[in-house]
Structures are given as structure tokens and as C-alpha cells.
């Protein structure tokens, strides 16, 4: 694959994008692992998703391949749907269990 680097990468190198998105992803990951509040966990998941989106966009430009950016549109659409469904589940769970503590959401274990 050709690696023609566009103008923009001479001022801000690709490494910076990778570092930023990795940092965002790790923040999201740690948030999912550590936080107990389900809404925070949900937001962390969104952060991870956006980190991935950022990465996709950056590399797409870098490699001069529009596929990555197209993918991002898809991801955003799906993420919107996911938020709707996810929030609905959270609301229902809160109604039933009266809590947002994720450790208490373990009723399905075998």
C-alpha cells in the first residue's frame, strides 16, 4: 500500500494521533474496569469507541484510503443506535434494581 503522507502530517506527525487515541482508549478501558457506576462505564465505552474512530480517521488519511473514514461513519451510526438501546437498558435496570452499581448487575450468572 502506498504511504504518501499528506501535508497535515508534516506539522502534526501520525505518532501524535496514535498516542492520543491510545491514551483515550486506555482511559476508557481503565474506566470500564475500575468504575462502578454504570453510566460512567457506559461513557468510558463511548470514549474507547471514539478513540478507535480517531485512529481510523488518522490512518485513513495517512494511507490515503477512504475505507477507514467510511468505516467511521458506520461506527458512529451504530454507536448512536447503541446509545439508545444501552441507555434504555440502563434505565430499565435502574428501575428494577434501584441502583447504578455495576457489581449488583450479576443476576444472570450461572
Amino acid at each position, binding site marked *: 500500500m502506498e504511504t504518501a503522507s499528506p501535508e497535515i502530517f508534516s506539522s502534526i506527525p501520525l505518532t501524535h494521533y496514535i498516542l492520543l487515541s491510545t491514551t483515550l482508549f486506555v482511559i476508557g*478501558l481503565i474506566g*470500564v*474496569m*475500575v468504575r462502578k457506576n454504570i453510566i460512567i*462505564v457506559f461513557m468510558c465505552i463511548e470514549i474507547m469507541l471514539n478513540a478507535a474512530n480517531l485512529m481510523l480517521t488518522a490512518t485513513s488519511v495517512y494511507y490515503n484510503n477512504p475505507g477507514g473514514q467510511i468505516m467511521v461513519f458506520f461506527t458512529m451510526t451504530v454507536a448512536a443506535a447503541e446509545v439508545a438501546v444501552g441507555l434504555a437498558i440502563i434505565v430499565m435496570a435502574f428501575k428494577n434494581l434501584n441502583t447504578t452499581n*455495576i*457489581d449488583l*448487575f*450479576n*443476576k*444472570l*450468572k*450461572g
Partner: protein
Amino acid sequence: MNPEILIHLIIWPTFIGFIINGLFGSMLSKTASGIIACAGPLIGFLATLYLYLTNPLLEAINYSYYNWFSIGLANPVNFSIYIDHLTILMLFIVTGVGTLIHVYSIGYMHEDKGFSRFFAYLNLFLFSMLLLITGSNLILLFAGWEGVGLCSFLLIGFWFKNPEYNKAARKAFVMNRIGDLGFILGIFLLAIKFNSVDIVKIQGSFANLSMNDPSIILITILLFIGVCGKSAQIPLFTWLPDAMAGPTPVSALIHAATMVTAGIYLVARMNILFSLAPFTLNVILFVGVATAIIAATIALKQNDIKKVLAYSTVSQLGYMASALGVAAYSTAIFHVMTHAFFKALLFLSAGSVIHGLHGEQDIKNMGGLKKKMFWTHLVFLIGTLAITGCPPFAGFFSKDEILSSVYSWNFWAFVGLSFASICTAWYMFRLYFSTFHGEFRGDKHVWNHVHESSWIMLFPLVVLAILSILGGFAGMPEILSERHFLHDFLKYNVVDHTHHVNHFFEYCLWSVTVLALAIIVWLTYNRYAKSSKEKFELEPTGFSKLFANKYYLDEIFANIFTNPLKRLGSWFKNTFDSKVIDILVQLPGNTLDKASIELKPIQSGNISWYIISILVGLIFFAILFLVKL
């Protein structure tokens, strides 16, 4: 009449009798079912007689009913009847003695509830026996062979409410089956080797076989195992004494006169084959002599009148086997014939005694019966004289022939048989004197009711007694007569090894026999004729104890075979099947089951834990991927 009709008349009347008595017995009166039952063997006997008188039988008759089944591709086994001189002789014995015993049974079983059932079984027995004798191939012979075993089972356990009798019946059937296994394996080898099971065809293909061919030895030994089972030779004889549980006519017909001699008949029928295997003949001789001695010594110490006669039968069968062992086949058949007469006579008169005493079988409760049962006493005496070989009764001639044939083959076997002969005389006269002479030792009450049997029981006894007196003249030794009628009769079918008998030896043997008999009679008379009840109840010691306990053979067999197998079976059933096999077979399923229980806690429901697992897995695979690159 053409021979085919005669063959139908020989074979089928007994079968028809069985069907009628078996299916409709409950609707018939006792007289009717008795007559129907007796008609079967009587018609058979008359037909045989007619066949014999009108047909010189220079060529054997072979009549095929239908194709029974086929082995492999092109070997039809026919349901076919084969009649030659040997068969005719056996037919005479079986139908003749059979008729007499049927007549006797009418009297003996008259009080019994299962009257028609009894006659149905007896007729079925005769039918099987006729199949055995006349079957033209080994498989039909085997069918008769198993059939008589079956009827023996049914008749031993005739009074089926008694568990002991049932056990005896089962024992007889199973021990016979052990022999049958040997027999059928022998048939297989013959069928594979000669590609046929037809007796005549097989015997015809022997010409090109060498002596002591290993396969022939194996075949003959296997056949002889069958003979051991049916004709009660060591080690398979222990069922016969137990078989006395059946009604006495059964003991007379099946366990003395006919069925147990089937083995002897088989060897005589296959005589050409056996003559090719001198090794097997020696085995037969050894087994025969050993059986004769062991059974005779056991008989010395038995107190049950039927048990004595049973061991005596085993011992006499040993004699016949010894004759076979020296390749004197027609001599063995001669003894089969005379033995059928006098042993049937002895059993039936013993039955008459038991009937007269209302079921008492123990000789310690008998004695002095001569006074009340004159005719029974007389015929029993004739039977005793015949079996002990007193000249000129039937047993004398056949036994003498066996002894002299054995003498010219093997001296020690002769000594053994002579010893058994002395034992025979001893236990028979012991039995005779303690039953019929002296004072009655049982209850006074029983004594008052002792009665002579009815004419219907006595008539067969008298006929058998006459046969026991005259039967021996069918085979006069060469000193007395130019012509041995029986040997001449059988010579077309049975090829004997010729024994040269020293005339001087013969005379010596006779004089010694008579002298020994006289001494034994005198000794036993003194000892047993006035014996008291206490003497019979004495605890036996030493050898007597060994004899009285039948050499502990039953116990030995039980401990070597039956009990270990039973224990093994129980262990298989209770432990091995459920604890080993089932567990092994279910191992894959159970392992998965266990594993799933063990792995269940992993799904804890803790999301952080899941995510860490995912991360760890991701890193693991990433490393794996990178390392591989």
C-alpha cells in the same frame, strides 16, 4: 407293506401319542390316555418286527422326508431316516422295553394327578430316542440326542413342586449339555472336513485316512465328550444318580435301558471312525474301566434302593465303554441289549417294592419282603443273577465277552473290570438280601399295608425276567456255539477288531466267576439277610466313608466349577457391571459434566473481571501473533 409305511409306523405313533396326550390329556380318561400312550411304542415294535421279518436288509433303508436345512451353500441336511441292522436291533430294544415300561407305568402312576402329562413326556421321549437311533445324519441324531436330554429333564423334574427334584433335573440337563457341546464341535469338524454330515457318506470317506490322524483324534475325542455326558462316564456321571428323583419307570426307561446307552450307540454307529483313532480308543478304555470301578465301589455303600441301581447303571455303562475301547463294538451293543433287559427289570421291581411300601426307598426300612411280595422278589432275584453274571443268565454272556475281549487287549484293564465285577455281585446281593430276606425293619404300620403290585405291573416284570434269562443266548461264546447270532447280525454295519480268545482262559474265567459268586452269596447272606436297622445307620469310616460320600465328587465339582462361576457372576452383576464398565463407558460424559461444574464459577457476573480476562486474552494472542511473525 412297503418299507416306507413301516418307517412311518415306527417313528410317528409315539409322536402322535405325545400330541394327543399333551394337548388333550386333561379331557381323556386315565385308561384312554394309557392305552394311547402304550399304542405308540407297541405299533413301533410290531412295525419293526414286520420290517425285520419281511426285509433281509441287505441294503440299508434310507428314507428322506424333506430337506430340513442346508449348511453353507450345497450341503442339504435332510430329515431322513436310515435303517440298517444296528438300527433294527436298537429299535427292538427301545420299542420293546419301552412298551413294557409304558404298560408298567399305567399301574405305577395310576394315583398321580399328572397321569396324562407323564405319558405325553414318555411318548415324546420315545420319539426323540427313535430319531436318535434312526437319524441318517449327525444333526438329526443330535436333535434326538438333545430331545432325549430334554425329556429326561422333564421327567426327572416331573414332581415339580419339589425344589430338590428341579435341581436334579437341571443338573442332568446341564451336564448333558456339557457333553453336547463336545458332540456338536465334533460334528462341526466332521462337516468341515468331509463337507457332509450324513453318517453313511462320512463313513464312506474314511478309506483314504491314515491311522491316528490328528484331526480324527480330535474329532473322536470331542464325540466321546458327548458320550461321556449322555452315557454318564467320568467325569460327567454325577447327574445320573441324582436323576433318580424322577418316577421309577423313568429311571428304568431313560436312565437305565435306553437314553444312557445312546452314547454307546453313537460310538458303535461311528465305529469306522473310532477304529481309525487307537489313541481315542485307549482313552475310552481307561475312562470306561475307571467309571466301572468308581461307580461300583460307590454302590457298595448306598442305602437308597434306586441309588444303588443308579450307580450300578453307571458301572455297567463303564463296561460297555470298555468294550468300545477295545474296538469290540458289537459286544458293547450286546451288553446294551442284555443290560436293557435286566436293568429295566431291576428298576421296575424296585419300583414295585417302592409302590408296595408307599414310597419308601431306604433299604434300612425294608427286609423280609419276600413273604408279601413273592413275584417281585422272584423277578428281582432273576435280575440280580443276570447282572452279576451268573451263568446262564443274560448278563453272563455279555459280560464274559467284554472281559475276554478286554483281556486280550490290556491285562490291567481286565483286572480292573474283574474287580468291578466282584463289587457288582457284592452290592447286588447286599441289596437283594437286605430287601427281601430277614425281618422287616420299618414301621409295623407300613408292614401291614405292604402289598404285591397289580398284574399290570407284574406282567412286564415277568416278560423282562424271561428276557433276562434267555437274552444272553443271542450271543453264545464260540466254545459253546459255532454261530454268534448277534455278531453275525451286526457284521454288515459294525466292524469289530477281532479278539482271539484263549479257550483255556475262557474256562478258567467261568469257573472263577461261579466260585466267586457262590462265595459272595454266602458272605452277603450272612451279613445282610439278618442285619439290624442299627447296622445300616453306622457311621462309615475309612474307605467306606469315601464310597458312601461318592468320592466327594459333587463337592469337588461344586468347588472347582459351579461356585467360583457363581461368585464370578455375582461379582460381575453387583460390582463389575455398574462400577467398572458403566463408569468406563460413561467416562466422557461424566468428565464433561464434572468439567462444567468446575468451570461454572468463571461466569461470576463481575464485569471488571470479564474485561480483565478479555484484555489478558487479547495480550496473549497479540504476543502469540507477534512471536510467530
